[in-house]
């Protein structure tokens, strides 16, 4: 067990240093760097949404709203109030977390389609509010945000997200969330406070969505309310479903695959969205449970032969 953790640690540090060196020496061309950053941001968004949709079983469509909160709060802090980057990211995430609780308490009493509609509405409310606040530029948005997101920050926060959510899912709280997903009535009968756990998972997901939004804002110079339309929520949902509801590694692989597909199809011009959609349809037809189902990709898979195939 201990050996495994050390091995993972070494692998992660090696990956960090390898990419860091590759960026420094220009081995990764600027165009691929943009996609690398998008990949990291997508991973954070997808993994945090998976906690809500995949593990707790609450179909939420307002993820872009939380990203918008994180993006706007952090951008206002760094650009207008001159605060450092780290506190700005955390402030953005905390604001998203608090709003997650406020939104979660009333809406999570709803289930299924109703919850989906309520959260979709929430995302649109955030967007509508931002359009009407002149301080943050209204419909034109905030422009000229300093480019503070670098590989180190991106990597750190991606790891933080993945490991926090992994550990949450494996904790008592996470088990309670999974129990709610599998059968809410049974879970409640067993004494699980379903509202508490649903709101908890929802607001933790919102917290990390806020981080994704903050990183996004500080990489792409400009944020507009239109950037965080419901299409962005759907993008994250596509990654979660594509990777497998309830699989963190699935979400990571899917986020990477979706970003890669997007980059690879760029030469097709207006046809690319059709090809992208077609690929998604094909994958979902052949693999309706998503790439990973509810399974996780672990080091055990790699060493299975050595251990004689038992898992």
């Amino acid at each position: 067990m201990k050996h495994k953790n050390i091995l993972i640690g070494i692998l992660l540090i090696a990956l960090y240093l390898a990419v860091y060196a590759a960026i420094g020496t220009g081995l990764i061309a600027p165009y691929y760097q943009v996609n690398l950053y998008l990949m990291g941001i997508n991973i954070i968004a997808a993994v945090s949404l998976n906690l809500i949709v995949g593990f707790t079983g609450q179909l939420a469509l307002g993820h872009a709203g939380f990203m918008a909160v994180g993006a706007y709060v952090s951008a206002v802090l760094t650009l207008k109030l001159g605060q450092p980057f780290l506190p700005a990211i955390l402030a953005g995430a905390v604001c998203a977390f608090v709003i997650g609780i406020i939104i979660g308490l009333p809406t999570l009493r709803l289930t299924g389609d109703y919850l989906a509609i309520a959260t979709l509405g929430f995302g649109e409310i955030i967007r509508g509010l931002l359009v009407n606040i002149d301080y943050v530029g209204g419909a034109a948005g905030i422009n000229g945000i300093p480019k503070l997101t670098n590989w180190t920050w991106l990597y750190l926060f991606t790891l933080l997200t993945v490991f926090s959510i992994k550990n949450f899912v494996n904790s008592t709280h996470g088990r309670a969330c999974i129990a709610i997903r599998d059968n809410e009535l049974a879970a409640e009968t067993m004494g699980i406070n379903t509202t508490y756990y649903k709101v908890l998972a929802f607001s933790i997901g919102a917290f990390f969505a806020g981080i994704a939004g903050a990183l996004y804002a500080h990489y792409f110079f400009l944020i507009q309310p239109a950037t965080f339309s419901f299409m962005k929520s759907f993008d994250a949902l596509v990654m979660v479903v594509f990777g497998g509801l309830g699989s963190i590694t699935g979400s990571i692989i899917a986020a990477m695959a979706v970003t890669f597909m997007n980059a690879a199809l760029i030469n097709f011009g207006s046809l690319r969205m059709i090809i992208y959609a077609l690929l998604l349809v094909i994958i979902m037809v052949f693999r309706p449970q998503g790439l990973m189902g509810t399974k996780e990709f672990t080091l055990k898979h790699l060493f299975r032969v050595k251990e004689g195939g038992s898992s």
Partner: protein
Amino acid sequence: MKTYKWLVVSLIMMLAVSLAATGCGKKETSDTIKVGVNYELSGEVAAYGTTAKDAILLAFDEINAAGGVLGKKIEAVVLDNKSDAAEALNVATKLITQEKVVAHLGPATTGATLNVVPVCTEYKVPLITNSATNPDVTVDPQTKETREYVFRTCFIDPPQAVVAAEFAVNQLGKKKMAVYYDNTNDYSKGLYQVFKEQVIALGGEIVAEEGYVKEDQEFRPTLTKFKQSGAELIYIPGYYEKVAKIISQARELGIDVPFLGADGWDSPDLVEVAGPEALNNTFFTNHYSPQDPSEKVQNFVKAYKERYGSIPASFSATAYDAAYLLADAIKRAGSTDTVAITKALAETKDFDGITGKFSFDEQHNPVKEVSIIEMVNGEQTLKTKITPKQ
């Protein structure tokens, strides 16, 4: 069975990837000049992006047929940015660092263009947009400095309102105006402010001003108020969907004063919703008129219609101008060095385009005449052209 399924999936994936790889197959670059075309070809504003791209490709084909520039042919590298600002940055990075384009045309919207500006500035590649009208696109709002590598071929919003005010007061001889603007839209609010200032400066008077919001369907109460205020002209700097409804409701109420608007009116849907009858005695400011009798405009309209089967919209005309302007700048620079092209662009004097003769001011905005279009029985006709006073 399971392995078989996976085989199919992975084969399809491989096919897609290999297709993508061949898509960017290397072409001989020595005898062509590569120009990046980064437009909204899918997504929300695909209509704008597509017409602009069509006009640019038409212009480049004409230039190449006439012998190209500096003895070389222009090769357009067209990529889609999905109407997404982040994607526009992604596309621009690819165009500049992978495709090594000498200049960058597009995107169509202000947001996407603002996202591309830092990339163009970093690699010193000139950018020309044909329809991003926000002043911030060419001037940094914080430092008030002109962005060195950014140019546009459309006029920014204020000149439209200046010309509208001058037309209303001096040519139509109206003194009392009412303004009905879109309260949720920066474009509309900006035009309203400038129009108001200009009308007062010219000795006119604003007798009523009201805002509507995007969701409004019922405009009669406000219009009745305008009628009672004795307004001789109503200025509506909005988009065609609402404008059409406002005008048809106003005519029902018996308001027969002229209406005046801006380029947001330019759509065939305006006539479809309001009806040709209601639109008589209405005017709007625009980038060009396809009815302009000048030979240059008529040739363009004819060529565009032959190739794409429709009358070019005003942003097709500005895109066409952007393509010719770039070719002209490369010729004047005498090289394909991006900094030399930028310098030539900044020095543009009296460039003779479809949308008028123009020079760039120190903020890289074109100084040119504004066309005033009159609606006559559902047809757009060119009323007059006015050069805005600086």
